[in-house]
C-alpha cells in the first residue's frame, strides 16, 4: 500500500467570522503566506542568537510600526524566556485586544511575535542584569506574571499612573519588580515609585490637541486623561517606549552584577535582509 503522506496546510486564514489573533489588526483577512514565512525566518534567526547568548530571560523588541517621526525604531517589547513551561524561548507580553480598551497577557513562540505585519523585520535583544535575570523566570512562568498587569489599556499610557497601562508599561513594571534589590515590590504603585527612584525617563512625544482629540474620539485604545494636565496641555505626552526601557537597562548594567555572557545593556539587533 502506498503510504499516504499527510500534512496540515496551516494557511493562517481567518474566515469571515473567525476571531483574530491577539495583538494583530482585527481585520478579517489572513496573514499572507509570505508574512508567515518571513516571521518564521526571523524567529529562527533570533532563536539562533538566543541559543548563542543563552540567557534565562531577555528583553526582545519588534518594529511593528514606523515610528521614525518620533525617533524610535521599535514599537513593542516583550520578555523572551528560555525555559518557559509553554516551550523553549517563549515570548511573554501584553497585547491589546483588537483595538479595544483592554489588554491581556500572552505567551507565544518567536515566530508568532513577528507575525504582526511588522514595518521592519528587525528584532532588538537586550540581556538583563542581576537580580532581574535570575528572578524573572519564576515570575514569568506562572500567574505571578499578571501581578503587574492592568487590564485597562491605552496605547500612550502615562507610566506613572495606574489608570491605564500599555504593553511596554507592563514589562517596565514587571522589570522594576525583578530589579529591586530589596525584592519588596508587589504593586503597580510600588513599581512606579521604584522606577522614579531609579531615574527612569519615559519617552516624551509631541502630540497636539487635535491629534489627541482625534485619537480619543475614534480609537478606544487611546486615552490621555491619565497624563498630568501640565504636560498634556503643553502637548507633552510621556509614555513607556521600548527605547526608554533599553535606556533604563543600559543605565543599570554598569553597576549590576553580571552572571552571564553579555550581561545587560548591550543591544543585539537581528534583521532580515
Amino acid at each position: 500500500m502506498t503510504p499516504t503522506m499527510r500534512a496540515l496546510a496551516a494557511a493562517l486564514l481567518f474566515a469571515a467570522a473567525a476571531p483574530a489573533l491577539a495583538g494583530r489588526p482585527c481585520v478579517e483577512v489572513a496573514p499572507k503566506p509570505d508574512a508567515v514565512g518571513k516571521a518564521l525566518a526571523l524567529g529562527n534567526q533570533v532563536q539562533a542568537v538566543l541559543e548563542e547568548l543563552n540567557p534565562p530571560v531577555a528583553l526582545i523588541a519588534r518594529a511593528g510600526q514606523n515610528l521614525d517621526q518620533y525617533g524610535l525604531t521599535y514599537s513593542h517589547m516583550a520578555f523572551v524566556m528560555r525555559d518557559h513551561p509553554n516551550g523553549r524561548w517563549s515570548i511573554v507580553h501584553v497585547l491589546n485586544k483588537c483595538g479595544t480598551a483592554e489588554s491581556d497577557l500572552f505567551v507565544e513562540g518567536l515566530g508568532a511575535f513577528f507575525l504582526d505585519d511588522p514595518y521592519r523585520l528587525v528584532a532588538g535583544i537586550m540581556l538583563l542584569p542581576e537580580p532581574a535575570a535570575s528572578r524573572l523566570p519564576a515570575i514569568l512562568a506562572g500567574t505571578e506574571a499578571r501581578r503587574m498587569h492592568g487590564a485597562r489599556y491605552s496605547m500612550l499610557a502615562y507610566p506613572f499612573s495606574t489608570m491605564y497601562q500599555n504593553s511596554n508599561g507592563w514589562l517596565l513594571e514587571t522589570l522594576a519588580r525583578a530589579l529591586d534589590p530589596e525584592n519588596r515590590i508587589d504593586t503597580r504603585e510600588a513599581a512606579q515609585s521604584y522606577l522614579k527612584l531609579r531615574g527612569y525617563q519615559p519617552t516624551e512625544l509631541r502630540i497636539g490637541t487635535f491629534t489627541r482629540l482625534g485619537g480619543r474620539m475614534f480609537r478606544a485604545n487611546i486615552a490621555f486623561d491619565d497624563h498630568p494636565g501640565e504636560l498634556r496641555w503643553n502637548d507633552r505626552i510621556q509614555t513607556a517606549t521600548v527605547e526608554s526601557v533599553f535606556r533604563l537597562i543600559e543605565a543599570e548594567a554598569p553597576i549590576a552584577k553580571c552572571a552571564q555572557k553579555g550581561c545587560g545593556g548591550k543591544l543585539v539587533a537581528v534583521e532580515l535582509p
Partner: protein
Amino acid sequence: MQLPAYVLAAVLAASLHAAPAQAQSSTRGSDSSSMLSTIVTSGIVLLPSLMVVHAIDSSTQGSHARVRVADRQTGRPMDVDIPKATLAQAGVKPGDTLHSRNDANGQYVAHNGRDIAYVPAKNSAPMLRQAPAPR
C-alpha cells in the same frame, strides 16, 4: 475576544502530522519546487481524521478541508488540509494543480501562481504558538 490558539493550533498540527516521508520527498532549499496536483474526485473533503481532530477540532470547528495531492516528482499522494475559506478564495477545484515551494522553515503552497498557504516545517511550527498566560 480573540482565540489566539485558533490558527496556531493548526500550525502546530501541521508539523506534528507531517510524515517524515513528506520531508523526504521535498527538496529543502530556497529555490526548490515541486508540482502537486489535486487528485480528489469527490470534491474537497472536510477533515474528519483523527490527527486533525486532535489538534484543531475545538478551535476551528471543522473549517478546514483536505486536499489530496500527488507530488509529480515522486508520484506519492499527500493529504494537505487547508482552511476552506482559503480554498474558496483561491478558487481551488478538483483537478486543479497546486505548486509547492520550500524555504528553510516550511513550504509555500501556490495556486495559479499565487501563494495561498504556508505549511511550517515540523521544527518551526511551535514557533507560531500563542496562548493566554496562566491565570
